[in-house]
């Protein structure tokens, strides 16, 4: 039986750390990379007697995620305890949400080769992150770092609507773009602030219902998501086709070998003994607050790209490049406003020049560049006024990027201003004509491609700063064309 006879069913569960300054239930900092256990207090250490107090900002961020994905926001949601033992979980339970989550029934639109596709979002709920167990590779004692314990998370549970590893990666990218645009998550898969588990199963094309599914963990890059799913799909089809049964289990992706492996088998089925968290009141969010948050939502990447196409006449590709990062999109629009001329021209300069410079200098993105939208606009105006040519403009831009100087000042300092003064150009052209009588004869005799020769000579006279159009015009008129 062939691969084409099988349909792949994928649903992703994404954990996104919220970018609040403090933890979800205490005042400790959420900064990444601090000395182990330096960002802890009685609450996140689960000292006896300590109690959680909900961080309102975390709720606001979770509501933003819900609204941006078209979820219904529950005005009355409930925190619940998920009970299990692990050293990185200091209370012996995780405060999460269970049967009454904050956000439900949303969707996310993604691009596929077959066109747009809407992927369902089952729910988005709030919970706290666990700490981190650091194991000694030499076999010494493991150490627990609780700096991360209590960092706020949203878990975004997607419907099993994805039908290929490519769709899964596309969904993950689109979701990451959304949370990053919302300013609630930094989208960093490597540091684990944006994490993904994939539920994967296969069934025969046309078959109703689902077969046993496998949960894949440790897929912390877009590439791994595709690799892990592709491997797992192949494995599952193999199991079924050999007459076996895929076991419902959790498997870990091994990026070195590119395979998935069953995690140490559980002796019994997990029973988290969920019950409503008695230390917290039910979470009540008012309709008025929800609407206020809705009003503050930024334009999301897909909408922005569509607007760039219609409003500025950009190609879908260019629009896609510009909206990939919100800072770039904002920078582009600021430059369009400052410039007032063709947005397409601005887009070309941003995509071809600015992004290259920013990437090369690796200094915290476009917002940190010394080239401001106003400076790019100034440069483009110098071009429009034909005071500089394209080569000069690029040279000026490099300088501005390095020093933050005004483009016009760089132009003057480096003598890059074009000569458009007809008198000076005529004098230079006349000098060239006088010095090259033979070429003049040939040109007049019909060898019009000598125009380039005269052009080169005249530009040399003008030290390369002649306005090419003006120089051409003068040559032609002096040679009787």
């Amino acid at each position, binding site marked *: 039986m062939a691969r084409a006879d099988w349909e792949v069913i994928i649903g992703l569960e994404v954990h996104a750390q919220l970018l609040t300054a403090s933890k979800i239930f205490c005042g400790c900092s959420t900064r990444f990379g601090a000395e182990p256990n330096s960002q802890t207090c*009685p609450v996140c*250490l*689960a*000292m*006896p*007697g*300590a*109690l*959680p*107090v*909900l961080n309102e900002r975390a709720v606001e961020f979770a509501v933003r995620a819900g609204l941006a994905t078209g979820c219904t926001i529950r005005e009355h949601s409930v925190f619940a*305890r998920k*009970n299990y*033992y692990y*050293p990185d979980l*200091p*209370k*012996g*339970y995780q405060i999460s949400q269970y049967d009454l989550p904050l956000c439900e029934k949303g969707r996310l639109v993604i691009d596929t080769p077959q066109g747009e596709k809407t992927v369902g979002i089952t729910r988005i709920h709030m919970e706290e992150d666990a700490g981190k167990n650091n194991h000694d590779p030499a076999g010494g004692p493991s150490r*627990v770092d609780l700096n991360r314990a209590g960092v706020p998370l949203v878990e975004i549970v997607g419907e099993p609507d994805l039908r290929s590893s490519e769709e899964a990666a596309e969904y993950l990218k689109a979701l990451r773009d959304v949370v990053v645009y919302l300013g609630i998550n930094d989208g960093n898969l490597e540091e684990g602030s944006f994490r993904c588990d994939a539920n994967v199963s296969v069934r025969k094309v046309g078959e109703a219902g689902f077969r046993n599914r496998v949960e894949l963990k440790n897929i912390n890059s877009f590439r791994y998501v595709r690799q892990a799913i592709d491997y797992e799909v192949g494995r599952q089809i193999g199991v079924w086709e050999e007459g076996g049964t895929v076991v419902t289990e959790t498997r870990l992706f091994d990026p070195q070998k590119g395979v998935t492996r069953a995690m140490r088998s559980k002796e019994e089925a997990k*029973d988290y*003994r*969920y*019950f409503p968290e*008695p*230390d*917290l*009141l039910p979470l009540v969010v008012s309709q008025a607050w929800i609407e206020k948050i809705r009003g503050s939502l930024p334009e999301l990447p897909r909408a922005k790209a569509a607007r760039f196409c219609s409003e500025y006449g950009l190609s879908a590709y260019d629009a896609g490049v510009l909206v990939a990062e919100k800072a770039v999109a904002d920078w582009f629009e600021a430059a369009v406003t400052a410039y007032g001329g063709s947005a397409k021209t601005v887009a070309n300069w941003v995509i071809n020049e600015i992004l290259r410079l920013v990437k090369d200098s690796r200094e915290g993105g476009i917002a940190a560049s010394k080239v401001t939208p106003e400076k790019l606009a100034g440069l483009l105006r110098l071009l429009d006024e034909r005071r500089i040519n394209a080569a000069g403009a690029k040279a000026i831009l490099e300088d501005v990027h390095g020093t933050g100087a005004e483009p016009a000042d760089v132009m003057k300092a480096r003598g890059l201003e074009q000569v458009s003064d007809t008198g000076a150009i005529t004098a230079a052209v006349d000098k060239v004509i006088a010095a090259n009588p033979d070429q003049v004869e040939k040109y007049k005799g019909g060898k019009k491609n000598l125009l380039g020769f005269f052009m080169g000579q005249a530009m040399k006279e003008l030290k390369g700063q002649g306005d090419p159009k003006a120089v051409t015009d003068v040559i032609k008129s002096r040679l009787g064309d």
Partner: protein
Amino acid sequence: MNPIDLTLAELSARLAAKDVSSAEVTAACLERIRATDALLGAFLFVDETGAMTHAQAADERRAAGRARGPLDGVPLALKDIFCTEGIPTTCGSKILDGFVPPYDSTHVRRLKDAGAVLLGKLNMDEFAMGSSNETSAFGPCRNPWDTSRTPGGSSGGSAAAVAARQCFATLGTDTGGSIRQPAAFSGVTGLKPTYGRCSRYGVIAFASSLDQVGPFGRTAEDCALVLQAIAGKDPMDSTSLDAPVPDWAAGMKGASVKGMRLGVPKEYFVEGLDPEVEKAVREAMRLLEELGATLVPVELPHTEYGISTYYVVAPAECSSNLARFDGVRYGMSKREEGALREMYFRTRAEGFGPEVKRRIMIGTYALSSGYYDAYYLRAQKVRTLIKRDFDEAFQMVDAIVTPTTPGVAFRLGERTEDPLQMYLADVFTLACNLAGLPGMSVPCGFSSNGLPIGLQILGKPLDEASLFRVGGAYQAATDWHTRAPRIG
């Protein structure tokens, strides 16, 4: 006269008048503890140095005209369930062996701010699970009226210390009767406030939706003075109530029950109630009637489901609350051999006593998948019905009066082999916790063998004032609360 025989209110007046110094009184308390506690076992830790230091500081404040109020310089003590910065806190359990909290509970902080002198930490049933103080890992506390008997539990040390005049008031916690029942058994006054009236921050949790902090004192007025200092919204506890805190002690001056309607629920006068207890309680009710109150029969039809409801909800919550005692971060940790699971198993097997283990198992079972609906969810529904009973009764009355316990203090060891018999000691007190109401126990007589009997007064949510009013008026007309045990 020995200053330890004063009530807190009297002491407060003497301190204000500089008739006596805090250092003298504190020294007298410490002397009393030395003299009696080897027998009673009320204290698990006595902070002699800290207490004397704070007493002297209080005297200096007063000399400088900067006294802080009625508790300034008053020696108090705390159930060992309150986290105290720098002072060992065991919760009556071996599993917290060596644990010294890095922070003060909200109550400890507020009492310190009020200038109180904290003498030490009091004995209790392990993790507040028990009705006799016998589940304490450090041995039982004894009843000052008869040292072969229990002072009640779980706040046994808190009740005994006040009864034995070791200090002027104490704090305890009440999850199903753990303040009112030992108050009744030990012949002192004890109050469990409305759920949320006091913070739970820094109180080692037993059952989060039931636990509430409250005072023990010799009189209702003394309880009012202490409650005043610790009540009120705490930003560290989301379940603490943001309600105004009235001046209870001022409100009960010359209190009268004239015109009050007091409910008498027939469900609390049933078979199993000790006839001597019933007689004393009926007599107290008759006296309240004489003082101007009207007794009104009320019905609390779901009372009989209280115990089973309580013994699902409380163990369920405790099974989760006690998960943090895993040997990783503090207290006992058995990590010498084996891997992670062995550390968990051995730490918890050796650290917890049998009653705590029993409740963790009951609670774990009740929350398990497949049983949740039948137990925990059902219990929460019954809880709503019990609360509704009270809501309806309080349509007709201002407060409800009942016996605090079905019997008087029993002998140590008498019920330890029979958990169900032990659980019955709380049969009249736990509905109040399930409904989140305030309740108080005041001494209302003695049995023929000289053991104290308690009258329970239950109030509407946030209406502690009515309890103080009834308790104050009753104590103005009786002298049960002034009697002292002869120890030894």
